[in-house]
């Protein structure tokens, strides 16, 4: 059953990927696209496929998988179905970083300069990196995980306030660029971004697969997990570091699209895949990738922002599933009715 689920998800991934690759507003014929894919034919077609569509689709799939894993780790760590990649405040840090570059420049009198992508990404990486360092400094001091949730929330409020101040002072053009970044998009990445997210995702997946049993033990409570041999401090550092790094990297290029990470584990649980992390890992990665590719397809088709698509489609679906099966998914709910 588990293998069947994964095969379905892989099949869907291929369909969504190919649909995204071979359709678009450029009106290229099948023959032109086929030739371009093998590096022949019209240069414009090659550019469209190799420099626009392929990196965008790869970025969408990798980001979806990364945010799905990040969300799963946070829901396990906090033992809270509402947790997602944004709870640590890493995305908020990235947003402040981008605001400082995009809007802070305005305040410093550089309003005339157009907003380049590189400084924006650098700002986001510095912002999320700063929050990660802060997290590292405070995690050991907190006696409960709820305190860490409150930390993430407070970071969000603080950065939100600073961003509001910057927005109030910003010039219209810069403000528009910043708001546009906040809407989320998989189109800003390029091959370098894909490579970096992949470089972070691969060790994260290997780590999650190796530590799957320890993550399971965590769900039995921290003290019981420790009594079962879990090195709580080490696992906490690894889980927070992995989740934060994945969320920070994706946010740097794609904007704050953390909803994907919250929704993906719920969709997987609602489909009846639940319990052990080794059972959930691949479905979460594949579902996250599929959800991102699907949302990106809608963005390209309808021209509305990515975050709007994800929330408009995702929120009702998650709500419907939770109302039907509860926060722990289908199998759990059925057993309770027995």
């Amino acid at each position, binding site marked *: 059953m588990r293998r069947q689920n994964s095969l379905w998800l892989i099949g869907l991934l291929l369909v969504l990927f190919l649909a995204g690759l071979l359709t678009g507003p450029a009106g290229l014929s099948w023959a032109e696209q086929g030739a371009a894919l093998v590096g022949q034919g019209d240069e414009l077609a090659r550019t469209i496929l190799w420099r626009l569509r392929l990196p965008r689709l790869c970025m969408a799939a990798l980001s979806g998988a990364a945010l799905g894993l990040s969300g799963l780790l946070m829901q396990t760590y906090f033992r809270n179905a509402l947790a997602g990649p944004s709870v640590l405040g890493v995305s908020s840090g990235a947003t402040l970083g981008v605001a400082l570059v995009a809007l802070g420049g305005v305040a410093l009198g550089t309003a005339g300069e157009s907003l380049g992508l590189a400084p924006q990404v650098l700002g986001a990486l510095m912002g999320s990196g700063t929050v990660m360092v802060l997290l590292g400094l405070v995690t050991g001091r907190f006696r409960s995980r709820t305190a860490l949730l409150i930390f993430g929330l407070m970071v969000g409020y603080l950065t939100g306030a600073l961003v509001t101040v910057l927005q109030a002072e910003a010039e219209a053009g810069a403000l528009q660029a910043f708001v546009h970044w906040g809407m989320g998009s998989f189109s800003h990445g390029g091959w370098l971004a894909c490579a970096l997210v992949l470089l972070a995702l691969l060790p994260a997946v290997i780590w999650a697969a190796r530590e799957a049993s320890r993550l399971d033990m965590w769900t039995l409570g921290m003290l019981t997990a420790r009594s*079962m*041999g879990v090195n709580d401090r080490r696992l906490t550092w690894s889980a927070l570091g992995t989740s934060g790094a994945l969320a920070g990297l994706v946010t740097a290029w794609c904007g704050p699209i953390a909803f994907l990470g919250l929704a993906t584990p719920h969709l997987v649980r609602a489909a009846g895949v639940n319990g052990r992390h080794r059972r959930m890992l691949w479905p979460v990665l594949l579902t996250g990738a599929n959800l991102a590719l699907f949302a990106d397809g809608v963005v390209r088709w309808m021209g509305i922002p990515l975050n709007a698509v994800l929330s408009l489609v995702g929120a009702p679906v998650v709500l419907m599933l939770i109302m039907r099966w509860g926060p722990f998914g289908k199998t759990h709910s059925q057993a*309770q009715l027995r």
Partner: protein
Amino acid sequence: MRDAILDIQDLELRHPSEGVGTLNLKIKGGEGLVVLGRNGSGKSTLLKTMAGLVRPVKGRILLSGQDVGTMSPRDRARDLALVFSTPPHDTPLTVRDVLELALDAGGSAFDDDALGAAMERGRIASWADMPMGALSDGMAQRVMMVRAFVQARSWILMDEPTAFLDIVARREFMDDVGRWCEEGKSVVLATHDLEAVEQAGWAHRWLLVRPPAQGGSILMDRQFNAEEARGLLLSHA
């Protein structure tokens, strides 16, 4: 593991603030020790300290010659398991998942037959595929006890594990503990359930934990007697 010895040497606990005095105690493999004391007297802290989860203020605990404070968490988990008074409910794991994890924590390879046998013996086989969240407190606690039995080679420490059990389940549980001791496992049980312990008849040693101002902790090397234990507990009330 009858050759396993838990050796408590000059131990002073971190909690409660008034202390429980200095503890010196040796528990052999196959023994059952009952720990008594009022709420907040330090029973839970003693068990957590014995399990290596809390550092003592002074002294050390040796498990077959090794200091539990310096053992790696994984090595410690193979020898010793701790059961808490409240079983977990908000876990997505099924009963079978929990026991598979117990095998893993105990360093044993997955063995479906052994798992099935442990579930049969613990009278939880019919719930094997149910999620923990769907079980009552008493059922979930029984699973956590079997978990400890499957995990630990020699020592099972339990902190008021019968708090949620009904009168029949308590008696069954105390009988199970007696059987575990006969099989060579050692059990340290912190409880307020005096009658059930006396009825089971396996407790030949018991420790009363109390602050020095009330006479300090005392170890009784004789058959557990509920009336005597009650008298001691009430003597400083």
